[in-house]
């Protein structure tokens, strides 16, 4: 037994090793589910960590590599491309929210007597690997983990967001997240959304909650439900009231995109979502 290699083990340790081997034999080995592993692996690779518990993900249009001119900041003002903005940007990581995210509530409501709400945490872009490593530690302390949590350098130059849904007294559940550079900001009719149950325990049920992000210029998102009806989310200003009866597109602090939430009427569920204006 090589368990004896490094320390002076007793006979009892050897016995425990044998007992563990006996106990391990109790498991039914079965056939390796190779195809299931491949399917699961491909799913993980495709969505990376962009989507965790949500059960439907929609990406419409293209984003990335497009001009920054014309994007609007969270306060509604024009966003100047980074190259000319550098001198006015906050310089310390704290000012850039690298170690503490900016949290914005996107929607809230009540379902069967339980309160639910959706929030997005946006972490500022670290500029160096050291800042990124420290950011990862801060994320970990908030139970937020990016996909490539062992690779701090992958976060450099990117904001990272985590969208979470809380329901009742349960812990917040991660819905979607990503690390994106400024070039990845949504433009035109780009849309990325996730549909999920309101109650996390009802994983096999319909998906009435739709959360997504769109370009700052998008004025209207239409969520269409399975019964053919639809809900229109319209753009509101930062800080506008959160009202569960009214779907809205709103800015989130630190995010280059605007965010929307739609909730399906009782008895129906998510079918599609698109930018309609």
């Amino acid at each position, binding site marked *: 037994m090589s*368990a004896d290699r490094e320390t002076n083990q007793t006979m009892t340790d050897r016995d425990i090793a044998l007992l563990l*081997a006996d106990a391990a034999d109790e498991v039914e080995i079965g056939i390796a589910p190779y195809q299931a592993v491949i399917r699961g692996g491909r799913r993980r690779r495709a969505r990376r960590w962009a989507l965790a518990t949500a059960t439907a993900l929609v990406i419409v249009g293209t984003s990335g590599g497009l001009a920054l001119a014309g994007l609007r900041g969270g306060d509604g003002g024009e966003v100047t491309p980074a190259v000319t903005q550098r001198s006015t940007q906050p310089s310390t990581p704290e000012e850039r929210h690298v170690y503490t995210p900016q949290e914005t509530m996107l929607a809230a409501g009540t379902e069967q007597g339980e309160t639910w709400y959706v929030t997005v945490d946006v972490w500022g872009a670290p500029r160096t690997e050291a800042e990124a490593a420290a950011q990862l530690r801060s994320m970990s302390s908030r139970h937020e983990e990016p996909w490539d949590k062992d690779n701090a350098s992958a976060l450099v130059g990117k904001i990272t967001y985590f969208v979470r849904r809380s329901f009742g007294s349960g812990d917040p559940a991660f819905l979607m997240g990503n690390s994106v550079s400024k070039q990845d900001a949504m433009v035109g009719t780009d849309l990325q959304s996730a549909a999920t149950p309101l109650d996390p325990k009802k994983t096999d049920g319909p998906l009435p909650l739709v959360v997504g992000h769109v370009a700052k210029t998008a004025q209207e998102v239409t969520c269409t439900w399975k019964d053919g009806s639809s809900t229109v989310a319209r753009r509101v200003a930062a800080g506008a009231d959160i009202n569960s009866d009214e779907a809205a597109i709103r800015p989130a602090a630190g995010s280059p995109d605007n965010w929307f939430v739609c909730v399906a009427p009782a008895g129906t569920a998510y079918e599609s979502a698109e930018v309609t204006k």
Partner: protein
Amino acid sequence: MGDRKEARETRDDAFQSFVIGRWPRLMRTAFLLTGEQHAAEDLVQSTLEQTFVAWRKVGSADDPEAYVRRVMINAHARKHRRRLKEFLAPKDDSGLVREVADTGDRIAQAEDRSALLQALAQLPPRQREAVVLRYWEDLTETQVAQAMGCSVGAVKSNAAKGIAKLRAIPGLAEMVTHGGRK
């Protein structure tokens, strides 16, 4: 283009061999870590899915097993961070000894394997991981430290505490005696 396709097929074949070849051992390790059949299957499948994603890098590494172990231990630890309790494990570090005093008769009556699994499940997760990797996986303390992402000292400490608690179980001593291993 053809070369690339061929390389991918070769990689896929290598991964398939890896999955099929390692499945039994990974299942046993996961079973000792989780104490439950389905949880073990989930843990191994999830571990292999993550391995698949990184297979291009992992498959060409000197020791893919080390990567897989690290992923599995991370997944196990993460699950514990989220759920705190997995199956039978009490939260406090001294739970096992207290538990044995309270339920000594029941453990003594239980089957050998079940008793050991139950005792193992009552260890705090880090101690359980250290004991399983050290004494079942038969890894060196250095390898265990790599898998657990901690120092060799922490491995020694966790393994020693875990083993001490297992030794303290009266039923375990009987198991060994009756099993003729002494």
